[in-house]
């Protein structure tokens, strides 16, 4: 009998197995972070399950590029997991507006987060919060300490020092001054424009003024970063026009380039690849003594499927994600992804420590194009990629780039009209 009907046997065995597990609530977590699978299974899930008997976690990540599409179709079909990892800003806002993400503003753990940290996952008026902020990435420059020592260079703190260092490396000729290419476009905007920009537009002040329509992309504060980018082209390697992001990573970790404009997410990968000591400095300020501003960009949040069968258990998990305990585990397991909670966290990785220490020295902001401004067509983020590349290559003047972006933004964003 059983031999003739293996599928039936399987079904029966699942039915028998089902009740045995029914006492425990199992929460399924949707995520695009398949890189983190081992960390969840070995560290985060055991820590949570030990503290909360009766709740089991099942982490089911999918490929980053496919996550949004897969998640949307699962939510439409009602087969999505209880817990949903949230992309920042509009992708998650759309899910909330479609009724897929639950309102979790009342959660206790929310009190651990600052307004900037929460901005990635709240409605435009900041009244409703639908995801718990989980991690951010900080922008800056990583450099090769050996090359700096060899050439007798110091960490630059002002723009003049920064370009003096680049000139020194270029004159020496043994190394590429800065590893960045324009082929994939996003580096030019993310590691270029949005990395150095906050120093000019004064972080949140400028960003919120732009959102409110009080500043324009043609203002000096928004054109000046382009002016600096226009000078970068001379310091990038030969053929940087066709250099891709993995090319840049390899050039730097192989020790062929001295400075790498980047973000903290590289730390864990680079630790395993580079056999030299790495240091980091924040975007150099215009004049010595100026306040520094860093892009401390909200990147990962976690929320609750509005259709979950286990809302209480899900809230327990979300509260725990907001706790200092989770922040410590997560930050040390993934150096470079920094917890957003205000609670102090100790980090073991020296490079990650360097990055997170800037939070004390500088003012934090997020990438200027992410909140609201990339909602329309043309999309400001994608336009900024294009403009940053054109400026670095010298195809477009900084002023023209600013004008083009402003024109595109004003075509659909009312406060800018």
């Amino acid at each position, binding site marked *: 009998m059983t031999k003739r009907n293996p599928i039936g046997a399987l079904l029966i065995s699942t039915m028998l197995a089902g009740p045995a597990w029914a006492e425990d609530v199992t929460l399924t977590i949707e995520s695009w972070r398949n890189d983190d699978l081992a960390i969840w299974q070995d560290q985060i899930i055991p820590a949570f399950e030990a503290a909360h008997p009766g709740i089991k976690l099942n982490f089911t990540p999918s490929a980053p590029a496919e996550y*949004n*599409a897969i998640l949307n179709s699962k939510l439409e079909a009602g087969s999505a997991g209880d817990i949903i990892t949230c992309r920042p*800003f*509009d*992708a998650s806002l*759309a899910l909330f*507006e*479609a009724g897929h993400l639950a309102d979790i503003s009342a959660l206790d753990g929310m009190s651990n987060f600052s307004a900037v940290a929460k901005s990635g996952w709240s409605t435009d008026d900041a009244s409703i919060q639908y995801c718990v902020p989980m991690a951010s990435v900080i922008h800056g420059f990583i450099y090769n300490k050996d090359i700096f020592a060899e050439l007798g260079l110091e960490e630059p703190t002002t723009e003049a020092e920064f370009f003096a260092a680049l000139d020194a490396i270029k004159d020496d000729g043994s190394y590429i001054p800065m590893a960045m*290419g*324009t*082929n*994939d*476009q*996003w580096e030019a905007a993310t590691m270029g424009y949005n990395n150095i920009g906050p120093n000019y537009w004064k972080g949140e002040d400028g960003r919120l003024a732009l959102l409110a329509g009080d500043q324009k992309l043609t203002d000096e504060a928004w054109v000046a970063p382009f002016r600096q980018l226009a000078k970068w082209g001379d310091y990038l*390697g*030969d*053929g*940087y*026009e*066709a*250099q*891709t992001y993995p*090319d840049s990573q*390899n*050039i730097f970790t192989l020790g062929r380039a001295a400075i790498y404009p980047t973000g903290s997410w590289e730390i864990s990968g680079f630790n395993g690849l580079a056999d030299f000591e790495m240091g980091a400095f924040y975007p150099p300020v215009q004049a010595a003594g100026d306040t520094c501003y860093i892009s401390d960009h909200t990147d990962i949040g976690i929320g609750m499927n509005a259709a979950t069968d286990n809302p209480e258990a899900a809230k327990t998990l979300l509260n725990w994600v907001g706790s200092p305990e989770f922040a410590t585990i997560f930050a040390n397991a993934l150096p470079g992804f920094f917890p957003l909670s205000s609670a102090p966290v100790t980090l073991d990785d020296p490079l990650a420590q360097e990055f997170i220490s800037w939070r004390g020295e500088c003012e934090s902001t997020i990438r200027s*194009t*992410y909140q609201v401004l*990339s*909602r329309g*067509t*043309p*999309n400001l*983020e*994608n336009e900024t*990629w*294009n403009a940053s*590349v*054109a400026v670095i*290559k010298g*195809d477009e003047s900084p002023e023209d780039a600013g004008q083009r972006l402003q024109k*595109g933004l004003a*075509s659909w964003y009312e406060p800018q009209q």
Partner: protein
Amino acid sequence: MRKHENSPRFRWHIVVFLAPAVLVYTAVMIYPLFNTLRLSFFAEVDQQRVFVGLQNFHRLFGDAIWSNQFWNALGNNLWFFLIHMLVQNPIGIALAAILSHSRLRFAAFYRSAIFIPTILSFVIVGFAWKLILSPIWGIAPGMLDAVGLNSLYAPWLGKEEYALTTLSLVSVWQFVGIPMMLIYAALLSIPEEILEAAEVEGITGLSAFWKIKLPLILPSIGIISILTFVANFNAFDLIYAAQGALAGPDFSTDILGTFLYRTFFGFQLQLGDPHMGSAIASAMFLIILLGVCLYLFGIQSRMRRYQF
């Protein structure tokens, strides 16, 4: 009654044999095609799908933000097609002519070697060529250096003026085996008698190719042209694998396929818009339909067929 009995029995086996193909084709091709056409007449307003008639098309062709992108993609697509027609197909025909030469040694080896790239995945071809042409790790700069032509090297894939042509040539390299194979088969099917008769008349060598073989393979060249047209206007994979969905630098390699992908599925912070995407897909469908109709009624029907 008698008449009924005499009429041929309904031939069920025809239905049975056709059914799998018809069902599969309907499910995976015809239904999605018509559903896409249908979707292009809708838009999403406040989480609701509403019928908007031709508004999406009006936006696509009337709004400069959309129409500039569309015409840019269409222009690039035409250039992509032109390079295939001017480079891929003549080379394919020449290769077939050489291969069909009876005294060529290792013909089978060359045939397979030239055909193999065709069966490679776009992703492999895209990445392999990206590496070959890479200014950092690539062998292209080194090879040009070795023959003293280093000054000719440029980071082609990163330069607006060269990127699309470079990618078109990569695609030509990949697919030159298809016209070669089709023409090769057509050349083999030319009866020996005709060639011998021509030889008796004193037509040999190159002039035999131009005067006898080429006219006889014209229908095959027509088929190849239309296959190239359809494939090129549906192309997407190679550009996506080599340059990403933004089809850089500065949209200089953006073709209709990548434009459709970006719009339909969204990209980075740009959320997907299935309805505008469907409008672009419908426009693509109409362009291809128009091209195929022009070919069928304008060229195919006038083509002379030779009966042997």
